[in-house]
Structures are given as structure tokens and as C-alpha cells.
């Protein structure tokens, strides 16, 4: 079943949903990157929760007008309107009052969602429309989806993606340097509002697939994951799109392959799985890479300090140092230096003496700051300079008894 779902052979609806989820994931990843770079990731949480009253009102209005309350296009329109109001509330509270953005987000999120819950109970009491479809919007459900809905989702995903690609230049500009953007005639406030508009579009399109509680995950997790793999902004955007798209597609396929696998949570968990893999195994910023770098550094420090001790004829007590020296063939397991060890130790000591001269001499002030106890002086000074330093040290002296 899973393979069939992956290769889009589970029927027309499932295919449309998978394609729609992939498109939605790409748009969400790309849009979310700009939110993430602006450090406003959780504004999306307020926007998505604020859709609920709109859904309720749209349902009630459609039933009152004699239509089917579950018409997806109508529900999406209603949710977009109330999410927009919620967004304006967050911005008004942040700008007009002394409250910080996090309070504004939390307040709007809870009050709007609370009101939405009230409306849901009103609808339950109406008994007029079939309200079963509304609960699905909380957590997403693609089971038994109408074809018309699948088409709306696929089209919505494609449109959102097109908009994101169109707006990505100004959004990048503002995300990195709002002041510079202003100076070349790009209004950061307007671009921010456009970004939020895109977040809104992603939320609304994702209502049916991912559900309004979890859609924020698709906006936050892909950029955070992408950030592990690269330091360049264009690539973060591209990778986030790929990660989002992959999660959407895989999640929708897995969910279609068996019963009782709700689409929204599966998509989010696939995305989270990609995040965990990146957290540990990303080449530069991953935890594993950092650990290896740390071990490497530790090894260097131990060997250097061990060599300096050997050169000065001091005993080495630290077992790790002895082990590392022994593994390099520089010392015997009982801490006595080998021939190679003696040579390396003498070099290390000479290096240290040269650095000391550098520290004392005002001529080498700039070089002096490069001394970290590990760097070979030969890598920062020319042979002529080193010869000059060796002259100051003088020739070999008698070893004190």
C-alpha cells in the first residue's frame, strides 16, 4: 500500500491530496524561512488558531443561506478573514501598547480559538448542517475527501507556491537588513505584511490536510531543519522548500496507506524526523559533527600539553594524555617518550619559546593575538621572521642540571 501511495497509484483523490500536500509543504517551508529569519516563527501560531471563528461563522452563514455548510471554498474564505483580523490584532497590540509580541500572540491565539470553540458548540446545537466535517479541520483529515476539495487544495498549493517564488526577493532583503531595504525603497512593513499574507494562504490551504493546530509545524520545522545544512540564505530557502515538500508528500502517502493514520500528525512527525536527523548528522552544525570537532580539539590540546611536559622532563599523570601519546607512537604506555616523541617534544618547546618572544616584542603585536596554544608559529610567520626570532632566543644553552 505504502509503495503504491508513494508512486501515486491509490486513486485520483489520494494522488491529488499527495500532490497538494507536497506543494503546500514547499510553500510552507519557503514562507516559514522568512518568518524564521525575522525571528517571528510563532506569529504563525496565532494566525492559524485565529482561523477557527472564521470557519464557524462561514459554516453558520452558509447553512443560514440554505447551502451545504461544509463547502471547503466557503470555509477557507471565512478562515482567511478571521485569521487576517487576528493578525491585525497581534500587530496592533504589539505597536500600540507596551505588551511584547509573545503576549500579543498568546492572547489573540487563545481568545480567537476560545471564540471558535463557542461557535463550534453553537453549530453542534443547530443540528441543521452536517457538522462532522468541521472537527476534521482541527487536526486535518483527508479520509473521504471530495474530489472538488482535493482540486481546491492542489490548486491552492500551486498558487501559494507561485506567490512565494514571486515575492522571495523583497522578503529576503527585509529578512536580512530592514534598514537597507528601506533605503532602496522597499517598505519593510509592507513586505512583512505580504509575508504574513503568505503564511495566511498556507494556513488556509493546509486547513483540510494538516489542520489548524498543526499547520504551524510546517512553517517552523522545515526552515529550522534547513538551517543545519547551510549558512547561505538562498539555500536555506531552497532546502526548507524541499524538506517541507518531502514531508507533505511522504506524510500524505503514509497516511493514505493505512486506516487510523491522521494526515496532519503524520506529516508533522515525518518533518520532525527529518529535523532530528539533521540535528544529529548535519555536516557542520550537527551535534555529531560538533562532538567530533570537540574530540579533535581535545586530542590536540592533550598531545601538545603532554609533549611540552615531556620536553621539560616532567612526568605525565593524566591517563588520557598518555593514551593519546602512546597511540601516536610518541610515548610508551608508562609515559616514557619514544625517539619520535622526544623530537616532537623538542619542536613543541621550541615553538613555545618562539611564541614567548613574539609576545614580548612589540613588532609582532598583531601576530601575538593569534597564539592559542595549538597553532604552529610556522603557519603564521615567514621563515625570515622565524630566523630573526631564533636569533633573539640565541643558540642552544646548557641544560640546567
Amino acid at each position, binding site marked *: 500500500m505504502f509503495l503504491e501511495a508513494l508512486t501515486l497509484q491509490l486513486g485520483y483523490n489520494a494522488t491529488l491530496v499527495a500532490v497538494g500536500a507536497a506543494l503546500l509543504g514547499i510553500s510552507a517551508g519557503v514562507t516559514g524561512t522568512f518568518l*524564521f529569519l525575522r*525571528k*517571528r*516563527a*510563532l506569529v*504563525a*501560531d496565532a494566525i492559524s488558531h485565529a482561523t477557527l471563528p472564521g470557519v464557524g461563522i462561514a459554516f453558520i452563514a452558509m447553512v443560514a443561506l440554505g447551502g451545504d455548510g461544509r463547502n471547503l471554498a466557503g470555509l477557507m474564505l471565512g478562515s482567511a478573514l478571521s485569521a487576517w483580523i487576528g493578525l491585525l490584532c497581534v500587530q*496592533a*497590540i504589539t505597536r*500600540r*501598547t*507596551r*505588551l*511584547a509580541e*509573545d*503576549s*500579543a*500572540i*498568546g*492572547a*489573540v*491565539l*487563545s*481568545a*480567537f*480559538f*476560545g*471564540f471558535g*470553540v*463557542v461557535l*463550534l*458548540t*453553537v453549530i453542534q*446545537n443547530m443540528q441543521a448542517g452536517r457538522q462532522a466535517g468541521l*472537527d476534521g479541520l*482541527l*487536526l486535518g483529515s483527508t479520509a473521504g475527501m471530495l474530489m472538488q476539495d482535493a482540486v481546491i487544495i492542489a490548486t491552492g498549493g500551486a498558487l501559494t507556491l507561485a506567490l512565494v517564488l514571486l515575492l522571495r526577493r523583497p522578503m529576503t532583503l527585509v529578512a536580512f537588513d530592514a534598514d537597507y531595504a528601506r533605503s532602496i525603497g522597499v517598505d519593510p512593513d509592507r513586505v512583512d505584511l505580504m509575508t504574513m499574507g503568505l503564511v495566511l494562504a498556507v494556513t488556509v490551504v493546509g486547513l483540510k490536510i494538516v489542520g489548524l*493546530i*498543526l499547520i*504551524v*509545524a510546517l*512553517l*517552523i*520545522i522545515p*526552515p*529550522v531543519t534547513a*538551517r*543545519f545544512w547551510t549558512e547561505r540564505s538562498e539555500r536555506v530557502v531552497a532546502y526548507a522548500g524541499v524538506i517541507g515538500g518531502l514531508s507533505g508528500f511522504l506524510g500524505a502517502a503514509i497516511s493514505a496507506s493505512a486506516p*487510523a*493514520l*491522521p494526515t*496532519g*500528525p*503524520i506529516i*508533522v*512527525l515525518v518533518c*520532525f524526523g527529518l*529535523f532530528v536527523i539533521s*540535528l544529529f548528522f548535519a555536516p557542520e*552544525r550537527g551535534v555529531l559533527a560538533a562532538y567530533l570537532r570537540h574530540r579533535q580539539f581535545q586530542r590536540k590540546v592533550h598531545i601538545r600539553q603532554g609533549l611540552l611536559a615531556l620536553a621539560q622532563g616532567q612526568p605525565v599523570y593524566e591517563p588520557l594524555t598518555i593514551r593519546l601519546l602512546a597511540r601516536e607512537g610518541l610515548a610508551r604506555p608508562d609515559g616514557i617518550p619514544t625517539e619520535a616523541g622526544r623530537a616532537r617534544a623538542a619542536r613543541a618547546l621550541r615553538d613555545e619559546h618562539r611564541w614567548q618572544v613574539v609576545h614580548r616584542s612589540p613588532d609582532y603585536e598583531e601576530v601575538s593575538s593569534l597564539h592559542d596554544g595549538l597553532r604552529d608559529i610556522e603557519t603564521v610567520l615567514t621563515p625570515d621572521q622565524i630566523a630573526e626570532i631564533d636569533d633573539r632566543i640565541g643558540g642552544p644553552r646548557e641544560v640546567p642540571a
Partner: protein
Amino acid sequence: MSGAEFVPLSLTPILIGVFTAVACALPGNFLVLRRQALIGDAISHVVLPGIVVAFLVTGTVTAWPMMIGAALASILAVVLIEAIRRLGRIETGAAMGVVFTAMFAGGVLLLERSDTSTVHLDVEHALMGNLESLIWLDAMGWASLLDPVALAGLPPELGRIFITLIGVSAFLWLFWRPLKISTFDEGFAQGLGMRTGALGMALVVVSAVAAVAAFDAVGSIIVIAMFICPPAAARLMTNRLERQIAWSVVFAVISAVMGYVLAGYGPLWLGGTNAVSAAGMIATTSGLILLLAVLFGPCRSRTGAPSEG
């Protein structure tokens, strides 16, 4: 309305609502001032996987395993957020978003995959709570308040949330000075030798306990609302922390009582027949109070100077 009707049906839900609101609003004051308001949001999401796992382990829907599961889940979430923030060098908001959405998704999935059809455990209940059902059937009227037999039939949630409220108040009272100083000037607090890191963690844990106890009774939507809306509104009323906390308690109580009354009786006044969600209405009321404070609060501007009048 007569006592015979009010005491059994409405008194306990109102009391539970009020205690919950105050227990969440008290630590919420500090969370809002420390810009950690969304911790409440994160905690209320991760409570769901906590209770689902507790249910899968114990096989019952009793209060204590669920509360312990929820508390462990909140602590796990806080630790994970901190770990991801440090290991991945990611800003707190994004780390929070990653953790609570993933844990919530895990909880929903577990719930759907396991057979919970025999017990009353579903996502909607977790979100919206069921304040209306916490009635006191043994009561006959006001006189039952003095009747030990009837008192034994009080809903157990009332006792738990009351103990939580006492605990939260005791924490704030005991650590008042360190909390106040470290909230406003962390550097100065450290200079005085206070362990601000431990204190911050303690505040988060106390908030988590309040959230879990409240969640048990009223669902998560009220919890987020009460953590943030009353303290935020109170922040716009005054410049003094003591008064802010007093205002937040007042706002929390008003939200709980008015929300409950509007939900229970509002539809009847409008000619409807059924009550609407009390938890949702309480959250809505607190939002409206915040709206009024945003529009008319004397200390709403950023400079901190009260406006004329």
C-alpha cells in the same frame, strides 16, 4: 434562581473556573513580564501526549497517573526546548514551535492508533474541557455547604485545583522578592547572589503544575487564555507589580464568572435552547477584557507614563 438549582449545577463549575483562572493568572504575570508568555501555550499542547501515554501505561483514565504523565511531558518539553535551543543554536520561539507541535502530533497519533473508544479521552475533550459536567449532585441547596455527607460528593477536580491554587500562591509569596528582582533586573539579582537560572526553571515548573491541574478540569484552551490575557490586561492598568497582580486576579475572576454565566444562560436569553462551551466563552471573555484594556487602559503606552486623567 433558587439555591436548590444553583448550588448543585452551577456553584462547583464556577468555583473550579475561578480557581483555575487565578492559579494560571498568578504565574502568568511573571511569564508575561519575562516575555515567556508562550511557555503556557507550549505546555498546554504537550499535556496531550502526556495523558495519552499515561493512559496507555496504566490503562485507566484516573486523575493521578494522567496528571503525573502530563507533568512529566511538560518537563520533558521544557528540557527538549532548551536542548534544541543550545545544541542547534536556534532562537527560543522556533525551538518551542518544533517541540510542541511534534509532541502534540505524537499525542494525536497515539490516541488515534490506540483503542480509546471505551473511555472518555479524545482530542476535542482535551482542548475544550468539560467544565459544565463538573456538577455537585449531592447538594440540595445552600445548606449542603455545611453538610459533611453532601460535601464528600464534591467533584474531586475542585479539591485538586484548590490545592494547586494554594501551592502557586505559596510559591509566589515565598519567593516574592527574588522573583520580582530577577524579573526586572536579572543582572542585579545575580549580583545579589540569587540563582536566577534555578528560579526561572522553578517558575516554569510551577506554571506547568498549574497548567496540568487546570487542564484536568477545564481543557487547554482556557489555560493559555488565563496565563496571558488577564496579566496582559493588568499590565496595561498599572505600573506597580503588586497592583498588576491584584488586577490580574480581578480580571481572571471576572472572566471565569462572566464566561460561565454567558455560556450557560446567554443562549437562553437569546432564545436558544442549549448552552455553549463554557471554556471557550471564558477564553473569549478574557480576550474582550484585554481588548478593553488595550483601548482604554491607563498605562497602555510603551513609555509607561499614565495618560491624562
